[in-house]
């Protein structure tokens, strides 16, 4: 069966199984090096393996919830959105959420995902109490910050390469309502955007949409969205009637692949200009339901088809704080002069991060999509170089094209990880198309 990540690039013909029990899963591990597959929301090839891809979709049960601590125990294939829909009405919200709710809990651990609250709360791993992992010899090991610590530290952010994550125990956060008080602030250039981030480090959520095609004095113009969980006293109008609502909305689906070339410098420039002007008009504070605030793109199922049949790649880097201003300016300049803009460019301030393998570092992260083409791939390689020169690193959950040299020169942690994999027998048991490409 043909499989790819969310970016639909690269596409690999895979043998896929979907075991129903740990016994069946263990038997599947005997068929050769394997990788667990969640809901296919990582962009590149980190969750696919031509010979042995193991779908975790049947490990999708919620097992226990403790209303005193907010701890939820669930199988790895449970979808984050199902957690939110089940628990927001009871006053609990996921502690960290990426930009889509269609990820699985196992995937969230493997990529140690971050959200709009990273600067304050850290990544998902910070809220994980323990995980059960099926390791190379087929045994199941519970690991946590206190128990089998080394396995825990290498599994959180370890891209599924230490074993198959079976169960996750993590803490939800209590909320008074399902609504978010959203404040939009326009920033006319990169300096203004960074100033806004630095001035609001106590905001719970912050993220910026950045126009990467704007040039000159407008380079880096952004709409910065701050968010706070609304308290009951903040609610008015419709929100008062359903403080923990609203019910899930109907989704639209992008029915066909967009024709090639639909997204070009011209259309993206026009889109971005419109989006910016619209943002200027709607600047200020308003109440938004949690689904619309955190997952605007989830409302269009299959939005990845907008890039056409050849798919797209995402570039996401993190830059250390001291080098962020200079690095971001250079990256934006490179993109704008290539005219290869993305209409989904996101800028975010990261807080400190002390886990072993996770992507975030104190500083800034920039993420943007490019349709797959020779020109774009060449541009991304130039962006790689700028990132490395500024001491930055890359997000493996988004990657589908990096070289092992790029990874190693940006992030020495992975060389040690790869050595350890050989010693622990993991290299022979768990492999993805990405781990093979990156020599992990």
């Amino acid at each position, binding site marked *: 069966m043909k499989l790819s990540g969310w970016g639909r690039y690269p596409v690999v013909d895979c043998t896929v199984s979907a075991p*129903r029990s740990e016994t069946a899963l263990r038997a599947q591990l005997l068929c050769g090096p394997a990788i667990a597959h969640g809901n296919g929301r990582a962009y590149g090839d980190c969750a696919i393996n031509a010979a042995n891809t193991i779908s975790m979709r049947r490990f*999708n*049960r*919620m*097992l*226990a919830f403790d209303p005193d601590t907010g701890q939820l125990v669930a*199988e790895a294939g449970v979808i984050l959105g199902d957690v939110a829909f*089940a628990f927001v009405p*009871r006053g609990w919200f996921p502690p960290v959420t990426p930009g889509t709710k269609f990820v699985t809990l196992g995937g969230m651990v493997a990529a140690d995902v971050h959200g709009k609250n990273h600067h304050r709360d850290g990544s998902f791993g910070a809220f994980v109490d323990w995980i059960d992992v099926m390791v190379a010899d087929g045994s199941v090991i519970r690991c946590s910050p206190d128990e089998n610590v080394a396995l825990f530290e290498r599994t959180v952010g370890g891209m599924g390469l230490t074993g198959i994550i079976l169960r996750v125990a993590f803490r939800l956060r209590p909320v008074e309502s399902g609504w978010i008080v959203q404040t939009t602030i326009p920033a006319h250039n990169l300096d203004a955007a960074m100033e806004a981030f630095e001035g609001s480090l106590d905001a719970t959520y912050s993220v910026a949409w950045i126009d990467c095609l704007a040039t000159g004095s407008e380079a880096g113009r952004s709409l910065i969205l701050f968010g706070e969980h609304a308290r009951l006293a903040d609610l008015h109008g419709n929100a008062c009637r359903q403080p923990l609502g609203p019910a899930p909305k109907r989704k639209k689906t992008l029915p066909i692949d967009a024709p090639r070339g639909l997204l070009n410098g011209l259309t993206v420039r026009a889109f971005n200009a419109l989006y910016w002007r619209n943002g200027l008009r709607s600047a200020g504070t308003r109440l938004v339901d949690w689904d619309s605030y955190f997952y605007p793109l989830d409302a269009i199922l299959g939005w990845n088809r907008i890039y056409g049949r050849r798919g797209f790649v995402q570039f996401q880097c993190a830059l250390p704080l001291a080098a962020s201003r200079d690095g971001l300016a250079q990256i934006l300049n490179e993109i704008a002069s290539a005219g290869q803009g993305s209409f989904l460019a996101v800028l975010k301030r990261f807080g400190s991060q002390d886990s072993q393998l996770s992507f975030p570092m104190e500083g800034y992260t920039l993420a943007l999509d490019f349709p797959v083409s020779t020109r774009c791939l060449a541009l991304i390689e130039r962006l790689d170089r700028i990132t490395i020169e500024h001491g930055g690193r890359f997000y493996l959950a988004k990657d589908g094209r990096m070289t092992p040299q790029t990874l190693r020169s940006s992030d020495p942690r992975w060389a040690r990880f790869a050595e350890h994999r050989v010693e622990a027998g993991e290299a022979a048991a768990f492999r993805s198309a990405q781990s093979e490409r990156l020599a992990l």
Partner: protein
Amino acid sequence: MTQADAKGPVLILAARSDIGNAIAHRFAAAGHPIQLAARGAEGMEAMRADLALRHQVEVSVHALDALDIEAHEAFLDTLPALPEIAVCAVGLLGDQAASAADAGAATKVMRSNFEAPALLLGALANRFEARGSGVIVGLSSVAGDRGRATNYVYGAAKAGFTAFLSGLRNRLAPSGVHVVTVLPGFVNTQMTEGMDLPARLTAEPEEVALAVERAVTRRQNVIYVRRIWWLVMMIIRNIPEPLFKRMKI
């Protein structure tokens, strides 16, 4: 929720099956307490916890060996309450070649698809009739519409089950008890894993569950989950026997 609009319990027979599981989720999402009946306990606690956590309804688990006919009444006595709706997904596809060669294998398929589910629902029907309300849902099969070389032992048992449900519906109509016959067609489940099934004719378990819920609400009698199966089976039923007996379908 007030007592008046509290939803009645739904009993799922063979709850561990993919279809049973999907139906349990569907009714739990609508607010019904769920009674799960399955052979053995393996994996049932996870299923119970998941239903209860996602949908905030009461969920109980009950051991049931459907082939142990003598124990049916005792099983029904263990339920916390007589259900409002009972859904029977008991069944076994078996292997036609084995069934043709070995009477033991054939007996197991016949008992699993006809005797056991029919008698279990028969026992429930008597209790529903005495109460004067209830809905019985039997998952039969399009294979029962006409015997074919590739699965006639399974098909014959399902034909018997379909006829039993039809008779039960006829008998219970005056008492206010309703009987639904579900003919799912191909479904993407553990039973059909590894088979090369045509996509247009193959439903997901969730589609079956949606169709069952709808049939219960609308008090439908006999439903095909995908409507195209009505056409397919009408054609298959109407092929003249001299022709049909030489066909490979």
